[in-house]
């Protein structure tokens, strides 16, 4: 804009904006003022105090003095610099030789682990892992630009994390396919991911899609989910307080809800997730979803209250940005045989038509407000009309295409509702 412009951020992220974001994303040493946190959800009296009584958290000056100074104080020499940045810190391929214990400690000190012990990525182990794919070690799987830094994640770097996670070469193509979605969900709220595997690879690798599918009871589910976490920290460069600032974080980030669908137990007429997305049944597909909420049904289905009704009730608490219902084959069987849902799409349609929440509750969610309120105010539909309604008016926050049904587990009539949005999917065989 070529006029003096300053940025304003909450105290929770202002140092990121002035440091990491400046160096690796925008290159401009923007003068920021830092407001006390939180800004959202506060009464007007707090907003008044932030401006008239509180200090800028960056300079420590009274807020308005800091703002006026940022527009009027002459530029420093550093603020006039243009052109090439300083050389980035080199990352040699090999680390300095050390004892096993010291290396384990180093990996923790560098925040490269999930703080459980790792398998050290020796040259021999990484070379063995690379035999799990025909791809060349220096092939770039993805350039990671968020958080900034344009990090070129190669096949070898993925192999390093696969070794660290405890994976075997046979698991490597699946991990490579998953790595195309690195890093894991990162926001100031508790974003997380879900890794869903479909197709023959589930049986080839002996993934768990039956009893205790979501628990820590399968080597493959465990190491693939863990590899995604480790890649998010190493290649993704997600480090708490430096590039990630979630107030609570999410325990799902330890394993990223890595499951496979129980395709063999689907009721007749219910298709696997990847087939509904246009892939062939014989394709091995991994899909990475993103969301925040994860709610268990707790108990089993009751005769006097059909399962779709209780699923609907629980889904009212979701944000309305998307949904994935994960249910056992036994629930799916009841929905098909006793409740007449002949396909997954029938159930998705019914849920979209019957999940309702108040307009006030929908817009009362900070993520919805942050994402959609500006569009509502610009008159964009359906947000504009929704936002004008009385807060007690009931609305339907979901569309049928946003409601995914996944069948997994076995042996009980239980289910989870989540707000995970499921992407299109990646072919695992492409990474063999």
């Amino acid at each position: 804009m070529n006029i003096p412009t300053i940025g304003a951020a909450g105290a929770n992220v202002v140092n990121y904006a002035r440091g990491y974001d400046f160096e690796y994303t925008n290159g401009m040493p923007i003068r920021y003022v830092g407001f006390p946190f939180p800004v959202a959800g506060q009464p007007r009296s707090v907003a008044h105090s932030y401006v008239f009584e509180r200090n800028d958290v960056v300079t420590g000056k009274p807020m308005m003095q800091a703002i006026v100074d940022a527009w009027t104080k002459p530029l420093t020499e550093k603020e006039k610099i243009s052109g090439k940045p300083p050389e980035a810190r080199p990352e040699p391929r090999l680390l300095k030789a050390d004892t096993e214990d010291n290396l384990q400690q180093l990996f923790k000190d560098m925040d490269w682990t999930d703080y459980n012990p790792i398998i050290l990525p020796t040259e021999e182990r990484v070379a063995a892992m690379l035999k799990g794919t025909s791809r060349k070690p220096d092939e770039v799987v993805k350039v990671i630009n968020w958080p900034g830094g344009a990090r070129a994640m190669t096949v070898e770097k993925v192999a390093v994390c696969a070794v660290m996670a405890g994976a075997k070469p046979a698991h490597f193509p699946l991990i490579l396919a998953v790595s195309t979605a690195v890093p894991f969900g990162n926001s100031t709220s508790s974003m997380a991911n879900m890794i869903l595997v479909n197709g023959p690879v589930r049986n080839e690798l002996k993934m768990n899609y039956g009893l205790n599918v979501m628990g820590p009871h399968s080597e493959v589910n465990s190491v693939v989910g863990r590899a995604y976490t480790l890649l998010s920290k190493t290649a993704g460069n997600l480090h708490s307080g430096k590039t990630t600032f979630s107030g609570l974080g999410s325990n799902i980030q330890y394993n990223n809800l890595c499951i496979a669908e129980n395709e063999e137990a689907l009721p007749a007429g219910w298709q696997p997730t990847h087939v509904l997305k246009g892939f062939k049944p014989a394709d091995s597909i991994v899909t990475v979803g993103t969301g925040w909420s994860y709610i268990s049904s707790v108990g089993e289905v009751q005769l006097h209250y059909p399962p779709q009704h209780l699923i609907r009730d629980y889904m009212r608490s979701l944000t309305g940005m998307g949904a994935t219902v994960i249910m056992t084959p036994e629930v799916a069987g009841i929905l098909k045989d006793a409740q007449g849902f002949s396909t997954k799409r029938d159930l998705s349609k019914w849920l979209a038509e019957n999940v309702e929440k108040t307009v006030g509750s929908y817009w009362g969610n900070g993520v919805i407000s942050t994402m959609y309120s500006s569009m509502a105010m610009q008159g964009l539909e359906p947000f504009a009309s929704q936002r004008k309604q009385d807060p007690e008016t009931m609305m339907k926050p979901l569309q049928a295409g946003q409601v995914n049904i996944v069948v997994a587990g076995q042996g009980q009539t239980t289910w989870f509702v989540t707000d995970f949005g499921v992407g299109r999917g990646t072919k695992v065989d492409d990474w063999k």
Partner: protein
Amino acid sequence: MRTTDFRRPRTPVSPCTKRGYCVKRGRIEDTFTGGPRRVTDRHISEGKENVKNKRILTGITLTIAAALAFAGLAPLPAQQGKGASGPLITVLNPAIESKMVDRIPLSPRLDTLEGKTIYLVDISWGGPEAAYSVFEEIQSWFAQNIPSAKIVIKRKAGMYTQDDPALWKEIAKNGNAALVGISG
């Protein structure tokens, strides 16, 4: 009747106390009671056997401890502090070089805000009331302190991640300074 005098010092005087068993027949002083005790050939033989058994037991214990240490069941070197000895291992670096971006200088600052048009741009982070209410307070501050400045509050189009070239063009044309926020 003889009673034990526990105040009496129990100085070992018997040859039995040096090797753990008696090597000579005859009378010795009992190391516990302090009274006399008769040593026979049977005592000497049994004493030798007892000490031999103790040494075997000690040897077995030490051997098991050493085996456990080699098997990795003994306390790990990491538990004994950093710098523990062990073979050196070379491993691959999992980190990837992050590239910094080209530097862009800031626009020159203003000498004064008197008579200037200042845009406050709400990116809608946290909803429509979050930054907007703060910006209205900033507007109020200017009305009281620099009334000649014109404050224009605008909401950026689209989500916070989306660009809004039309607004940037408007600000470049009509504005003298801007504040954009508030992220959090």
